[in-house]
């Protein structure tokens, strides 16, 4: 998994996290670690560029949810404690879309996965980079 970070300025400062590769249990913690580092560097709004992610397993869902928790300043659950992680995701799905993390241009199969898992009710999904940046406020 190749991870890049880029700072841009919209209504608020936004960090664009670019992901490239296949997102699964072998590398999802790299995504979380990169988001944690960005948070400690002051990042509070993140746009995750999914355009070069050509596969995503449920570990990717856990990673994206963890990124949202980090941007909200919340403590992450123990990732080995599957029950707690899944309940946290379920709870957040019930609360609706959050504003700290948005997704950019997921490939069709990954988008379908996000829709089937209802993660599209938790993350705004944008297909246009500028529109996505401006959507943060």
């Amino acid at each position: 998994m190749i991870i890049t970070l880029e700072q841009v300025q919209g209504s608020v400062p936004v960090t664009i996290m670019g992901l490239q590769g296949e997102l699964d249990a072998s590398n999802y913690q790299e995504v979380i670690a990169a988001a944690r580092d960005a948070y400690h560097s002051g990042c509070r709004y993140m746009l995750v560029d999914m355009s070069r992610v050509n596969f995503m397993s449920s570990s990717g869902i856990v990673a994206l949810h963890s990124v949202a928790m980090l941007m909200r300043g919340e403590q992450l659950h123990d990732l080995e404690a599957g029950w707690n992680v899944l309940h946290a995701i379920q709870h957040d799905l019930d609360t609706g879309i959050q504003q700290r993390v948005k997704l950019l241009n997921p490939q069709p199969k990954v988008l379908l996965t996000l829709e089937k898992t209802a993660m599209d009710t938790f993350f705004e999904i944008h297909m246009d980079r500028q529109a996505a940046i401006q959507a943060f406020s």
Partner: protein
Amino acid sequence: MSKPALIELHASLNHLAVLRRFVHDQALLLGLDESEAYDLMLAMTEAVTNILLHGYPNQEGWIAIEMFAEANGAMLVIRDAAPGFDPTQAGASKLKNQAPDRPSGGMGIAWIRQFTDRMQYQPLASGGNQLLLFKMRKAKGTEVSDDNHA
């Protein structure tokens, strides 16, 4: 009928991508389309991830995947030597807006159900597990229900 294709690897998360390539290529050879092959890759990834994280948490092991044609689709068989675990008896939840009902691997099991048409478990006589996942080849213009699991 073509012979079954088999891959056997040391149990490691680093091998997930290799296993996906195998499943993708075999699925296409067996007549599935790209979308069906992707679903089978997803289901295999979830099943093998559960085995690696929960079946072999602190021990060496192996994973074997066999694929062959079955009527109207492709069968994928995952074998391992981890302690016995029957995923068909766990995680009966549906994906959308329902909490999984298993402490670990719950989401993965829900995904296996969601992205395949049949899931069947058999313990291996030698110890270990055998999970059979069937993906139906859709006829043109037809849709497969999500509710037709074994």
